[in-house]
């Protein structure tokens, strides 16, 4: 653990590109290998794959998943986990949709984001100040958020959101879908946060060695609260995009979102043990998951085979990444 901290310090001293030292940059590139392999394979297999409209389509599909897993990435970097992201997405989406269709879009957006932030703050307080393991604290929050959504919705479904609000999920700016712009804007902001600010470097340090981080005078508790709050906030942000996209909200909104979010984080090379990884990798992870689904649809893979094929491709892409970047990754530290 002390070695990891020493590594991080060493890396900071070297010249940087995009906020990344050369060895870290190489690890990012290695994460892209699996993605590139998938793109090349699909381009050969399907003539419909390598078109502008299809590629933009894939990125658009990856966007909500990326938003959800980007906040989660921060938590995972501190060696924690947030199991409540799917449920928080559901709760925030329901609250926001209800108020927005009720005629108050600003309040709706604020309340949706506020609900996510509140859940995240509670998670963070439980983990940092009360010392509850993140798995337990956020598992509890998952049920609380689910339960609140059930009570709030009373078995109803909300349909028909205003067109202006729907722009963030279904709109375009020129040829680029809004969710894609939001995805890259968020990616850039979080990248700067992680690699250009003391706060970001602190997040890596906490994941690498929490004791050393505390002894070095870092406000560990407050930073932990920050990452869980960000995770909740990002989940509710993802909820707004999803609701705007589907034009409907019900309590099942967040169902089956948690594991793909964790998968995107891990596929992107962020270590579940903390201190290693980053949001750029998570974007790659989300893109891989969207690509696999796109590929299966384009190739017409049988419905019953799709779940198995998805699992297989995930394992193959991690394996490809290990072969190319494994050695560097082990030696290189944070990306």
């Amino acid at each position, binding site marked *: 653990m002390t070695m990891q901290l020493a590594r991080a310090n060493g890396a900071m001293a070297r010249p940087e590109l995009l906020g990344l030292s050369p060895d870290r940059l190489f690890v990012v590139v290695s994460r892209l290998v699996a993605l590139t392999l998938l793109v090349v394979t699909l381009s050969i297999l*399907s003539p*419909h*794959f390598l*078109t502008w*409209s*299809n590629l933009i*389509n894939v990125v*658009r*599909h990856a966007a*909500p998943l990326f938003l959800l897993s980007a906040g989660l990435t921060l938590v995972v970097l501190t060696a924690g986990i947030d199991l409540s992201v799917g449920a928080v997405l559901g709760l925030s989406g329901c609250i926001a949709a209800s108020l927005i269709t009720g005629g108050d879009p600003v309040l709706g957006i604020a309340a949706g984001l506020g609900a996510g932030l509140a859940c995240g703050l509670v998670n963070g307080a439980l983990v940092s100040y009360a010392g509850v393991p993140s798995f337990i604290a956020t598992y509890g929050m998952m049920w609380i958020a689910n339960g609140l959504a*059930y009570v709030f*919705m*009373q*078995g*109803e*479904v909300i*349909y*028909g959101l205003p067109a202006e609000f729907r722009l963030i999920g*279904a709109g375009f700016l020129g040829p680029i879908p809004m969710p894609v712009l939001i995805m890259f804007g968020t990616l850039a902001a979080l990248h700067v946060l992680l690699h250009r600010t003391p706060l970001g470097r602190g997040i890596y340090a906490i994941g690498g060695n929490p004791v050393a981080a505390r002894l070095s005078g870092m406000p560990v508790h407050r930073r932990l609260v920050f990452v869980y709050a960000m995770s909740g906030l990002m989940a509710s942000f993802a909820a707004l995009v*999803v609701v705007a*996209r*589907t*034009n*409907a909200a*019900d*309590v*099942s909104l967040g*169902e*089956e979102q948690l594991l793909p979010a964790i998968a995107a984080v891990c596929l992107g090379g962020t270590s579940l043990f903390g201190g290693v990884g980053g949001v750029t990798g998570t974007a790659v992870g989300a893109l891989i998951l969207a690509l696999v*689904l*796109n590929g*299966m*649809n*384009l190739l*017409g893979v049988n*419905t*019953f085979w*799709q*779940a198995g094929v998805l699992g297989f491709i995930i394992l193959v892409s991690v394996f490809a990444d290990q072969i190319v970047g494994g050695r560097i990754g082990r030696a290189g530290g944070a990306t």
Partner: protein
Amino acid sequence: MTISRRQFTAGTLAAGAATALGTLPSGSAFAQGSKPTIAFFVKNVTNPFWKACRIGAEKAAKELGINMEVVAPTKPDNIEEQTRLVEDWIVKKPDAFVFVPVDYKALVPSVQKANKAGIPIINYNNKMTDIEKVTFIGSDDALFEYEICKYLFNSMGGKGKVVHIDGVPAAITAQMRKKGFERAVKEFPGIEVLASQPGQYRRLPASQVFENLMQRFPEIDAVVSANDDMAVGIVEALYAAGRGGKTKVVGIDGIPDAIQAIAEGKMFATVDFSGHDQSYLAVQAAVRHLKGEKVPAEILLPVFIIDKSNVGKVAKTPEERAVPSWDKVAGKA
């Protein structure tokens, strides 16, 4: 959802004690002049379908003057929790179970215990086998999809390129609906199936899958979706891609959003899959059985297609919906 733990009455106790499997001396509660109690099961309290079921059942209970307790797992569709609920309610011994299993196979042993305890079972929505039941009341998924496909294919002059969006691959309803689709396709040689891909019965995955398919197929004449939620997502995707109005989209269920889309001319048609009617008739069947009337062994709801011509007459909420006529539906069965 509050599931009140109401004490059972002396009447229901006696009714339970008097029952024996197969030779059910029905009508005991009525005979003693007390209100019978029925345990009405739903799969969850989160999905509007089960809310419609609850409303339909409550209408019947009110009309017939019985006590009805709604029994629902707190975790949606949870097998283990429903198993415990069934066991709890066997101990409470209501006059009848109006029952839908969260899983039609996993709940068989629990319902067999209720059989042994002599509680009459009225099975609705998802059909169970290997249990003793008074009747099954539901809708035939395969027939529903077959009929909507036939209606769609005829409207296309019997030829065209069609995409099918499946439900959850593991769900029995999704498999039955797909069978209905395949049966209809066989009868129309001019219909070409471009693709059949899973949309998980949910809007976001279905619209994403369909957007992928639009990349591959520049021309799609019609889409058959295994439920309405997905169908509405597909309609959205078509309009977002500037391909709205050229592709006929059909679904199953008759959810308010789909009815709205049909009224706006964006969606072609759907089949009314009414939980409200199923549960209303199921509670009716329970009470009729307790009164000693003969109830048909199976009651299947008629296929009712909603399209532009009749969409204005369709009730938007289960509260507003008219109750079905027992004689009309059960008389036919």
